[in-house]
């Protein structure tokens, strides 16, 4: 069976429409088999056992080598990726420079080299793969000459200890499809870029040449047609960037001299592969503008290797791969798949991506303790909930239209006990009795899913009028990426009119939201479960209520009035109820209310509890 297609990183409304239609269209009536994750182990003939004799040689080489260049910066950083997976990228302190690794160690013993092969490694992103391996490996290692060949990913390391530690990582890592990753370790000769590394004089001249091509004001380095630079030719230095040793040397110089490089031009260098260049992702991740035009890149897959750079501008014209597309839109789409944040391609402005354009606030600032949610995130959610329930509890829930996405989903469930002879008072929640399904499972009443914000708000408006006890709320933020936030609220509320007036209910509501303008949130999924509160919950409800200034019959606020209350609350720093009172007292004259507020505040006449606490 082919269940829904996994949409890579496309959580735009258009993407959601496709999901919705694919949900309706793409499967038959078969019941899906629920499968366990995991697969059968690899056939035994693929399991490695060669080279194991060598592993037992306990000689270990020192990992730290003499670095002739200036100090390496500590490059630890944490980076978040999207797709609902939280990846942690840690750049290790690079104590082992490529240059220092010759064939001899400091005490004159040969440092043995090993080739590390990951079969089927071709499908893994280099950064993810290296980080996964490093996180499982007991010894820090520096991969040399990482490249993809046929189905495999390959790189080299030096030292028996390192190689042995890497061998132990085999079968320890699970990929995203729950397959175990195998790592083969074999002795090898010195890798290319090390064997043919540039001489110090060559490096020096290359550096001087590159300096001339560097524009410090733009942080741009122009290396087009580097091979034919008169300086290099004059000194008989052949810099063919296709060759790993040359590319490595070039990147090293960039890393050391232009560590915050923004723009790199590699046009006209006959590049047919990007394995070598992909090392730049770890070495100089600041690059946002990349010119690869007029090279020999054949397939878009090569560009995948550069995904780790969050490019804003890319030049590709003049590569064979450009001719493989039937039309411009397909070409652009394929490139955008690779670099979702791309703004310009071949000099042409692209339509900005729906969510990730620069105006939209990033929900998650990269920070180390983001699992728990940064404080900014917490207060964003709490503020959102305050506003949401303010409207929800006011007379008119139409205002909630702003809070929902066009394609949002909402569902409501209540427990239903078959022993009740009289229908549960909760059945008030299903006023649209036409839509109530005859429950197959008699213990549960579930209203069918509401889709689109109009339908949702329509059905919310019909639910009994409520007053929520905000102080009872327990908020769990349990999932966040740059594009999506998921949190649950547990709490109680009271029904304030109708047959069940005074009844206290307990609820659990889960929201999935995406960032919206004005540092606010937009709901895409809303799941609500309501049940009767227990006697002890009822007793404790509303006991911590702050003195509200509204009279017992809560006036219904118009949309405009609600907006005034928020704005006032944001500007004055007072809680919503107090802001509302101030505006009401001043006949909803915003300016006058503001003046009165300022005056009272200066006179110290406003109590502290009127103000919002900063969480």
């Amino acid at each position, binding site marked *: 069976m082919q269940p829904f297609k996994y949409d890579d990183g496309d959580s735009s409304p258009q993407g959601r429409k496709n999901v919705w239609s694919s949900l309706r269209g793409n499967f038959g009536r078969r*019941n*899906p088999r629920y499968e366990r*994750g995991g697969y059968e182990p690899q056939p035994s003939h693929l399991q490695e056992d060669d080279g194991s004799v060598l592993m037992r040689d306990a000689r270990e080489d020192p990992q730290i080598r003499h670095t002739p260049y200036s100090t390496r910066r500590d490059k630890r950083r944490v980076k978040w990726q999207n*797709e609902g*997976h939280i990846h942690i990228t840690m750049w290790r302190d690079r104590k082992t420079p490529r240059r220092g690794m010759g064939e001899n160690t400091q005490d004159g013993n040969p440092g043995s080299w090993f080739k590390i092969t990951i079969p089927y490694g071709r499908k893994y992103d280099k950064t993810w793969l290296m980080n996964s391996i490093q996180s499982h490996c007991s010894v820090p290692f520096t991969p040399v000459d990482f490249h993809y060949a046929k189905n495999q990913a390959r790189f080299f390391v030096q030292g028996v200890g390192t190689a042995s530690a890497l061998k132990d990582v085999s079968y320890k890592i699970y990929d995203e499809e729950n397959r175990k990753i195998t790592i083969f370790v074999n002795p090898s000769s010195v890798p290319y870029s090390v064997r043919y590394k540039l001489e110090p004089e060559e490096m020096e001249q290359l550096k001087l040449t590159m300096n001339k091509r560097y524009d410090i004001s733009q942080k741009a380095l122009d290396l087009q047609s580097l091979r034919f630079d008169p300086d290099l030719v004059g000194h008989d230095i052949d810099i063919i960037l296709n060759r790993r040793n040359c590319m490595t040397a070039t990147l090293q110089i960039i890393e050391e001299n232009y560590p915050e490089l923004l723009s790199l031009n590699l046009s006209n260098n006959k590049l047919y592969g990007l394995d070598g260049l992909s090392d730049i992702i770890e070495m100089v991740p600041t690059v946002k503008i990349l010119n690869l035009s007029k090279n020999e890149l054949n397939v878009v897959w090569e560009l995948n290797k550069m995904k780790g750079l969050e490019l804003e501008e890319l030049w590709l014209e003049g590569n064979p791969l450009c001719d493989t597309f039937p039309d411009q839109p397909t070409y652009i789409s394929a490139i955008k798949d690779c670099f979702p944040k791309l703004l310009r391609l071949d000099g042409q402005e692209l339509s900005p991506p729906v969510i990730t354009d620069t105006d939209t606030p990033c929900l998650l600032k990269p920070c180390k303790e983001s699992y728990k949610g940064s404080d900014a995130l917490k207060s964003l959610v709490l503020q959102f909930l305050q506003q949401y329930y303010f409207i929800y509890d006011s007379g008119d829930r139409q205002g909630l239209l702003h809070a929902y996405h066009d394609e949002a989903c909402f569902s409501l*469930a209540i427990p239903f006990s078959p022993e009740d002879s009289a229908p549960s008072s909760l059945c008030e929640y299903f006023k649209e009795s036409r839509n109530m399904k005859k429950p197959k499972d008699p213990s549960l009443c579930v209203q069918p899913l509401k889709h689109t914000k109009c339908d949702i708000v329509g059905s919310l408006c019909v639910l009994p009028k409520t007053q929520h006890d905000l102080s009872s709320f327990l908020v*769990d933020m349990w999932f966040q990426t740059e594009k*999506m936030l*998921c949190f649950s609220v547990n709490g109680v509320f009271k029904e304030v009119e109708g047959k069940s007036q005074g009844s206290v209910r307990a609820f659990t509501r889960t929201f999935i939201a995406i960032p919206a303008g004005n540092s606010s949130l937009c709901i*895409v999924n809303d799941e609500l479960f309501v049940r009767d509160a227990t006697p002890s919950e009822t007793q404790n409800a509303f006991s911590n209520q702050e003195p509200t200034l509204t009279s017992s019959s809560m006036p219904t606020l118009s949309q405009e009035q609600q907006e005034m209350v928020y704005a006032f609350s944001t500007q004055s720093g007072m809680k919503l109820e107090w802001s509302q009172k101030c505006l009401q007292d001043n006949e909803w004259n915003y300016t006058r209310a503001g003046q009165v507020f300022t005056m009272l505040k200066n006179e110290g006449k406003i109590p502290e509890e009127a103000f919002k606490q900063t969480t």
Partner: protein
Amino acid sequence: GDKPIWEQIGSSFIQHYYQLFDNDRTQLGAIYIDASCLTWEGQQFQGKAAIVEKLSSLPFQKIQHSITAQDHQPTPDSCIISMVVGQLKADEDPIMGFHQMFLLKNINDAWVCTNDMFRLALHNFG
């Protein structure tokens, strides 16, 4: 059946999950992946290994879950979010209410759980 696909998948997963949990929760590793995250009563655990370790080390021998309500929705990125409310009984302790949410994702024709959030209800159900 007539049920929408996400309900079928969600309820199938839920059934499988609690069956595994109640019979032998050390086997739960199969439904998580390395990128999964569990939030258990506010504490976070990342990765299949850490999650299974937490669940296996919970301080009870016998456990039984009974589902009061479950609800499923599709999400914008083709995942499924499932909500479960129910009761559980551990060893000889009194019955407690709980509430759990799962985020399910399809990876190579198998549905795995990428996020799991569990909370005990503050008070017993009636």
